C-alpha cells in the first residue's frame, strides 16, 4: 500500500507537472498573440512629405532570392550584384540613358578625349584611366591603380572566375603612378567601358590562398557608401555606413539590411505591413495589388530583358546536325503562321497588366536599340490562310498535317514560373485554332538553362521544338547578337557545343550585318548594322519576340532618393537613399 500511496503522489505529480506546463504554455501563447505588432525600426514612420534628405535610420530591403556570393569575380546572380553594389564600386557605370559615367575614374576615356589611342595599324588600342585621388577602401587603406591591375590579374589567373570576356583582350596593364592605369588591348574591343565595374581590394584579396573560399565572398571590401558587416546565410545581410566614404555627407542611411524571404509573395506581404521598406523584382501580376496601396510606390523602369520564343529550324534530335531541317518548323510558312497566331498585345494586357511592351527585337534599349519595322502582328486568319496555301491540311482532330507529318510541337520553358506557364497555355490554345498542336514540357532552370553541352541543355543539343525564356543583352549588344545569330555559333558535336545560335539560323545577310557591327568603333555605323541584322532575323521568322519586360521594384512612400536605371540595379545610388521622418 505504501507503494500505492507513493505512486499516487508520483502519479499526481507527473500529471500536475504536465498540466502546469500546458497551462503555462497557453498563457504564453495568449500573451504573445495579444502583443501588438512591433512598429519596426524608426524607418516606418508616417509617410509625410518632407524636403531634403534626412540623415539616419535603417532600411530593410527584402530579397526573395538569396545571393550565394558577393565577391565580384564569382558573383553571377542579379541579386548578388544588387546587394554587392552598395559597397563595391568600379571605374565606370552606365546611366539610365545608356551613357557611361565615371565612378572611381575621373572621366570616361574615349577616342575624342584622348583616353583611347589606336595603334598605327588600327588593330590594337590603349585605354588610359585617370583615377580619383584620396579615395580609400572602407578599412582606410588607400585605393590605387595597383588595385585595378590586381583585379585584372585575378580575372585571368583564377580558374573559378565567372567570365573573362573582354579581360582576355588585355595584353598588359601599366601603372605609372598611383592614379593612372594604362591598359594595352590586343584588339579593338568596343565594349571596354563595361569592364572593371567592380574592383577587388588588392591588400586583402592577395593574402588569400583561394579567394573563392574566403570570407571575401560574404563581406567583400569596397569603396562605396556602405560596408558589409554581417552575412547570415538564409537570413539577412547587413551593410553599414562606410565612415571612409569619399563623400562625407553621404550615405544618409545608417544601415541597409537585406532580408531574405522565401518568396516574392511573402516580401509583398511584409512590404505592405511595413516590416520591410523596399523590395526587388516584382512580377507584373503582383502590380494591381500593390497599386492599390497608398503607402507603397512602384518603381517601373524599362529593362533590356526580352522574353522570346525560339524556333528550332533543325531537326529535333540529340546533337542535331546543323544542316538538318525540322520536319514541321523547317517550313517557313509554318513559322510565319506561328508568329501570326501569337496574341502579343493580349498577353501584355491580360497577363502582364500592361506593364510590358510587345517585342520586336532582342535589343530594346540603349544606343543599339532596334528602330526598324515591328514584328508582324496578331492575325490568325492570315496564319490559317498561309498554312492552307502551303499544303498543311487539317485532319479530323483539327490538327494539320503535310506529307505524312503531323503539326505537333512541344514548347519548353522553366518550371515554377507562373507567367510563363500562363503564356504557354494561351499559345497552346491559340495554335490549336490554326491547327497546330502544342504540348508543354517544362524543365527546372538548372536543366533547361544550364548552358552546358555536356550537361545536356536541350537548347545546345537541339532537342526541342520551341523554347521560351528571356535574355538581357549588355549595353553593348555585340557578344549577345553574335553568339545567338551568327552561323558560326551553332552548337554541334563537331565544335563541341560551342555557341548559342539555338535557332540554328544560317543567313549570310545576318552574318554580314553582325560582322559589320563588330568591326568598327563608330556607334552610328554599328547601330545601323545591328538594325539590319535584326531585320534579317525577323525576315527569317526564327524568333517570336514576345514582350519587353519592365523592371519593377517598390519602396514605401517614406523612402526617398531612389531612382530607376535601365542598365543598372536599383541600388546603383544607394548612397542617396534616405528615410523621411
Amino acid at each position, binding site marked *: 500500500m505504501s507503494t500505492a500511496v507513493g505512486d499516487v503522489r508520483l502519479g499526481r505529480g507527473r500529471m500536475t507537472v*504536465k498540466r502546469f506546463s500546458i497551462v503555462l504554455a497557453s498563457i504564453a501563447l495568449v500573451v504573445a498573440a495579444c502583443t501588438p505588432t512591433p512598429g519596426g525600426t524608426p524607418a516606418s514612420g508616417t509617410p509625410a512629405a518632407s524636403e531634403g534628405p534626412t540623415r539616419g535610420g535603417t532600411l530593410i530591403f527584402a530579397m526573395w532570392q538569396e545571393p550565394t556570393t558577393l565577391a565580384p569575380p564569382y558573383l553571377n546572380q542579379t541579386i548578388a550584384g544588387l546587394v554587392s553594389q552598395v559597397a563595391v564600386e568600379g571605374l565606370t557605370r552606365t546611366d539610365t540613358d545608356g551613357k557611361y559615367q565615371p565612378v572611381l575614374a575621373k572621366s570616361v576615356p574615349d577616342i575624342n578625349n584622348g583616353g583611347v589611342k589606336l595603334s598605327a595599324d588600327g588593330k590594337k588600342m590603349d585605354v588610359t584611366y585617370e583615377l580619383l585621388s584620396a579615395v580609400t577602401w572602407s578599412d582606410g587603406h588607400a585605393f590605387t591603380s595597383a588595385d585595378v591591375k590586381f583585379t585584372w590579374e585575378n580575372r585571368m589567373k583564377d580558374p573559378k572566375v565567372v567570365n573573362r570576356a573582354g579581360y582576355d583582350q588585355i595584353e598588359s596593364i601599366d601603372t605609372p603612378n598611383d592614379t593612372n592605369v594604362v591598359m594595352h588591348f590586343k584588339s579593338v574591343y568596343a565594349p571596354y567601358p563595361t569592364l572593371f565595374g567592380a574592383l577587388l581590394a588588392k591588400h586583402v584579396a592577395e593574402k588569400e590562398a583561394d579567394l573563392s573560399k574566403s570570407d571575401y565572398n560574404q563581406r567583400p571590401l569596397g569603396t562605396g557608401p556602405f560596408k558589409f558587416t554581417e552575412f547570415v546565410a538564409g537570413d539577412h545581410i547587413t551593410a553599414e555606413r562606410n565612415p571612409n566614404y569619399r563623400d562625407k555627407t553621404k550615405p544618409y542611411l545608417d544601415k541597409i539590411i537585406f532580408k531574405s524571404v522565401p518568396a516574392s509573395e*511573402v516580401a509583398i506581404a511584409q512590404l505592405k505591413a511595413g516590416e520591410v521598406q523596399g523590395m526587388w523584382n516584382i512580377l507584373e501580376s503582383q502590380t494591381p495589388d500593390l497599386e492599390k496601396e497608398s503607402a507603397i510606390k512602384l518603381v517601373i523602369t524599362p529593362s533590356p530583358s526580352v522574353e522570346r520564343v525560339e524556333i528550332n529550324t533543325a531537326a529535333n534530335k540529340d546533337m542535331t546536325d546543323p544542316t538538318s531541317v525540322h520536319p514541321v518548323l523547317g517550313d517557313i510558312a509554318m513559322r510565319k503562321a506561328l508568329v501570326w497566331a501569337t496574341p502579343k498585345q493580349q498577353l501584355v494586357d491580360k497577363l502582364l497588366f500592361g506593364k510590358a511592351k510587345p517585342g520586336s527585337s532582342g535589343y530594346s534599349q540603349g544606343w543599339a536599340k532596334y528602330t526598324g519595322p515591328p514584328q508582324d502582328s496578331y492575325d490568325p486568319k492570315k496564319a490559317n490562310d498561309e498554312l492552307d496555301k502551303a499544303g498543311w491540311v487539317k485532319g479530323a482532330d483539327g490538327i494539320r498535317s503535310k506529307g505524312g507529318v503531323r503539326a505537333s510541337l512541344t514548347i519548353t520553358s522553366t518550371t515554377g514560373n507562373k507567367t510563363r506557364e500562363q503564356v504557354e497555355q494561351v499559345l497552346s490554345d491559340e495554335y490549336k485554332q490554326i491547327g497546330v498542336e502544342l504540348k508543354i514540357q517544362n524543365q527546372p532552370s538548372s536543366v533547361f538553362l544550364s548552358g552546358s553541352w555536356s*550537361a*545536356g541543355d536541350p537548347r545546345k543539343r537541339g532537342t526541342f521544338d520551341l523554347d521560351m525564356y528571356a535574355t538581357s543583352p549588355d549595353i553593348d549588344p555585340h557578344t549577345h547578337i553574335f553568339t545567338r545569330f551568327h552561323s558560326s555559333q551553332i552548337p554541334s558535336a563537331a565544335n563541341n557545343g560551342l555557341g548559342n545560335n539555338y535557332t540554328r539560323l544560317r543567313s549570310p545577310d545576318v552574318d554580314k550585318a553582325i560582322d559589320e557591327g563588330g568591326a568598327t568603333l563608330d556607334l552610328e555605323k554599328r547601330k545601323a548594322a545591328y538594325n539590319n541584322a535584326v531585320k534579317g532575323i525577323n525576315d527569317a521568322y526564327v524568333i517570336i519576340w514576345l514582350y519587353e519586360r519592365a523592371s519593377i521594384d517598390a519602396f514605401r512612400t517614406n523612402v526617398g532618393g531612389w531612382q530607376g536605371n535601365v542598365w543598372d540595379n536599383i541600388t546603383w545610388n544607394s548612397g542617396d537613399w534616405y528615410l523621411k521622418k
Partner: protein
Amino acid sequence: MTTYVLRRLLQAVPLLLGITVVSFAILKAIPGGPMAAYEGNPNITDEDIRRLEHALGLDQPVHIQYLSWLTAFLTGDWGYSYSSHRAVLTEIMERFPKTVYLMGTVYVVTLLVAIPIGILTAVRQYSWFDHIVTGTTFAFLSTPTFWLGLLLIIVFGLQLRLLPLGGMATLGTDFDLLDRVRHLILPVATLSLVGIGRYVRFLRASMLETLTQDYLRTARAKGLGERIVVARHALKNASIPLVTVAALDLPELFVGALVTEQIFGWPGMGRLYWDAATRSDYPVIMGFLAVAASLIILANLAADVFYAYLDPRIRYA
C-alpha cells in the same frame, strides 16, 4: 544486447556507403547541372563554362568524381558549395541549430499536448470529449502541412495582423524573448497540429488495447484506483510503441521540415537542401543526404534498443 548494438552499428557502415553511392549516381544521372546558374549572364562564353566545369572537377569520369568525394568526406573535408564557395560543413553547421530550435520546440509541444489528450480520450472513450478530439485529430492529420501553413499565414499574418509573416526574429532589433516566441508560433503550430493528430490517434489506439488487458482487470479487482491503473500500468505499457514511433521521428529534428521552412522563411536545414537541390549544388546535397541517412539509421537503432529495453519480452540475439 551490446553485441546486438555493435552488430547493428557495423552493419550501418556498408549501408551508409551504399546510400552515398546511390545518391551520387542519381545526382549524376540527373540532366543539367550547376552551370545553369550562369545562364542569365550575357558575358559568359562557352570557354568560361568549360573552364568552370574543369575547375569544379565536373569533366572527370563519374567514378573518379565519387571516389574523390568519398576520400575527402571521410577525412572531414565535405567539399565546398558550388554556389557560395563556402565549406559544406560550415553551411550545414550554420543551419543545424536553427532547425533544431524549431523542430525541438515542435517535438516538445507535440508530445506535451498529445500525451495527456491521448490518455484522456482512451480513458473517456465515446464521451463528447472523445468525439471532438477524434474529429479534430482526423482533420489535422488529413491536412497537407503546406496548406495549413498558408492558411495560418493568411488568417493570423495578413488578415488579423497578429503574428509576423516569417523569419526567426524581427530584424534590426536586439534579442527579445517575446519577439522570438511570436515568430515561433505559426511554424510550430503548423507542424505540431498535424503531429498532435497523429500521436493522439496512435496513443489512443494503443491505450485502448492496453486498457482491456487482463492484468488490468486484476489490478482493478485488487482495488487500485482508476488513476493509478491508468498511470502506472496502462500508460507505461501503452507508451512502448509510442516511444518507438517518437524515436523514429527524431531525424526530423535535425533534417527539418522542408516545406514549412520554405513557407515561413526559416533559415534551416530544409531550406538549405531545397536551394542546393534546385541549383544542382552536389557537394551540399551529398553532405546533407549523408547526415540525414546517418540520423535515420541511428534513430532506427535507438528505437529498437528502446523497445527492447522497455519491453522485457523482446530479446535480440
